[in-house]
């Protein structure tokens, strides 16, 4: 036996061992194409190794195996190709099946309605989809035309979205539509779509969520916001609202009139833009301080106080407003949502210039009067006076001449003279001469 024959015999033993292991596990793999191809490869290998071993051993020279050897030499590499190709395809198919199983498991547990359809026919529907359509089971949905359960207004739009998905293999974003339940009731849904690869070809996957309740809540919220907006709009006091980012979200007619700044020009602006009409520069105002207190700015107000821990009330003078400036009284408060979270703030101002000026005039008048009063000394009350000499007794008990008493207790002064009667009585001669 030659060394070549020995090598071929080793190969034969290897191939035979391989066949033994193959037969042990073939029942688990034979249904696959790769299993069959491997069987053919191993059989060809055994025959090829055995022919080579026989040929190189020289023991059976009388047997002519050339024809079979020619045939097997060509078929052997091809069986390898067959095995590799079928293995690759089977592996890919198995991976796809595993992926499909995992996908189905995910779909089944998805809280959103998920259903897959090919050419409009529903192939897969999860329990949430069954509930969404009001069906009794997934079997009631599978096989149905999906578009028969879409409201007529939305059918064409959803079909064009499906075409887009199929052609581009890209998902489409959420959109709103109306579905028709099994009992004919119309529901509002949000739907998104994408393409999923399945063992039997791609399908369009649609994820839907019932938003009927949410839509009603949104409508109610929109109504509420509109009412609030209307209330703010027609408040007699200048009022505006900012959100947490400091952007103006409401600006009523009264403040348009006061500042001359139109709503369209200020809505959506942040960075203290609402302060410019009042101060000529962007800076925190009461509405900002109610969201974030700042002692430094608070001291700039003529008066500043917090009421009930909810409101900030302040008075300020704005020299750049009007010709001679304006006094404003402002009230600001936080705004809360239904959960009690702060969502913004509102400020209302009132022009108190006239009141302030009137107050200033009044105070000035009072001061003047008080000054005048301090200068006026008046006599009043019961004065004890001597019936004979007309002296007056003061508070300390001393008797004062009437002239000195009056001079002391009033602004009156005396210029002494003599009346005709007294002159006649005291100076009769002089009186007669003058007469």
């Amino acid at each position, binding site marked *: 036996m030659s*060394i*070549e024959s*020995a*090598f*071929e*015999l*080793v*190969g*034969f*033993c*290897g*191939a*035979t*061992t*391989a*066949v*033994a*292991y*193959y037969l*042990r*596990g*073939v*029942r*688990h*793999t034979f249904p*696959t194409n*790769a*299993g069959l191809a*491997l069987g053919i490869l*191993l059989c060809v*290998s055994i025959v090829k*190794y055995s022919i*080579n071993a026989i040929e*190189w051993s020289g023991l059976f020279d009388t047997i002519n195996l050339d024809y079979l*050897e*020619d045939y097997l*030499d*060509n078929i*052997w*590499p*091809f069986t*390898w*190709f067959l*095995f*590799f*190709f079928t*293995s*690759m395809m*089977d*592996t*890919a198919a198995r*991976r796809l099946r595993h992926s499909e199983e995992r996908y189905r498991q995910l779909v089944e547990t998805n809280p959103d309605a998920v259903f897959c359809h090919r050419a409009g026919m529903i192939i897969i529907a999860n329990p949430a989809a069954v509930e969404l359509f009001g069906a009794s089971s997934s079997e009631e949905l599978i096989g149905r035309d999906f578009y028969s359960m879409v409201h007529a207004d939305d059918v064409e739009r959803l079909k064009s979205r499906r075409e887009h998905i199929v052609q581009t293999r890209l998902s489409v974003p959420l959109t709103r539509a109306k579905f028709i339940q099994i009992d004919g009731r119309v529901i509002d849904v949000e739907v998104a779509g994408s393409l999923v690869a399945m063992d039997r070809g791609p399908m369009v996957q649609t994820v839907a969520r019932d938003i009927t309740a949410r839509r009603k809540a949104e409508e109610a919220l929109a109504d509420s916001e509109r009412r609030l907006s209307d209330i703010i709009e027609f408040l007699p006091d200048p009022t505006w609202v900012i959100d947490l980012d400091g952007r103006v979200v409401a600006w009523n007619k009264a403040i348009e009139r006061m500042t001359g700044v139109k709503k369209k020009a200020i809505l959506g602006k942040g960075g203290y833009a609402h302060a410019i009409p009042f101060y000529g520069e962007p800076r925190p105002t009461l509405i900002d301080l109610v969201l974030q207190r700042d002692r430094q700015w608070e001291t700039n107000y003529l008066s500043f106080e917090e009421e009930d821990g909810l409101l900030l009330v302040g008075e300020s003078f704005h020299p750049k407003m009007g010709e001679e400036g304006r006094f404003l009284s402002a009230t600001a408060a936080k705004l809360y949502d239904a959960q009690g979270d702060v969502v913004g703030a509102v400020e209302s101002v009132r022009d108190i210039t006239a009141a302030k000026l009137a107050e200033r005039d009044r105070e000035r008048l009072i001061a003047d009067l008080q000054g005048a009063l301090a200068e006026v000394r008046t006599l009043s009350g019961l004065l004890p006076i001597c019936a004979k000499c007309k002296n007056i007794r003061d508070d300390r008990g001393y008797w004062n001449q009437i002239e000195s008493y009056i001079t002391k207790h009033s602004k009156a002064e005396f210029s002494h003279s003599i009346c005709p009667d007294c002159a006649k009585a005291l100076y009769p001669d002089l009186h007669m001469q003058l007469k």
Partner: protein
Amino acid sequence: MEQREILSFLIGCCVMAFVVFQWPNMRRLPNVKLIMGSFAALFASWGFSVVEALFWETGFNFLQHLFSGIGGIFMALWCRAVFRNPKAPDSAP
């Protein structure tokens, strides 16, 4: 040089090209190094059978049969690795 040896080597080259181009998919085969070792050894064997007709006949003939035997051994090792636990579904080709 025999025509059948050239033809089998050419077919082997095509299969090798297929394996190379499909390597991202082929590498998912279980115990891929063993089965590829078997195929590579046989491919070398086919190559040596062609080359031996050109020069150093004795040496290349020896190598041809050596690699042919190695291919058989790798084939047995791969089948053992794959079918030793046949109930594991992912171990099958």
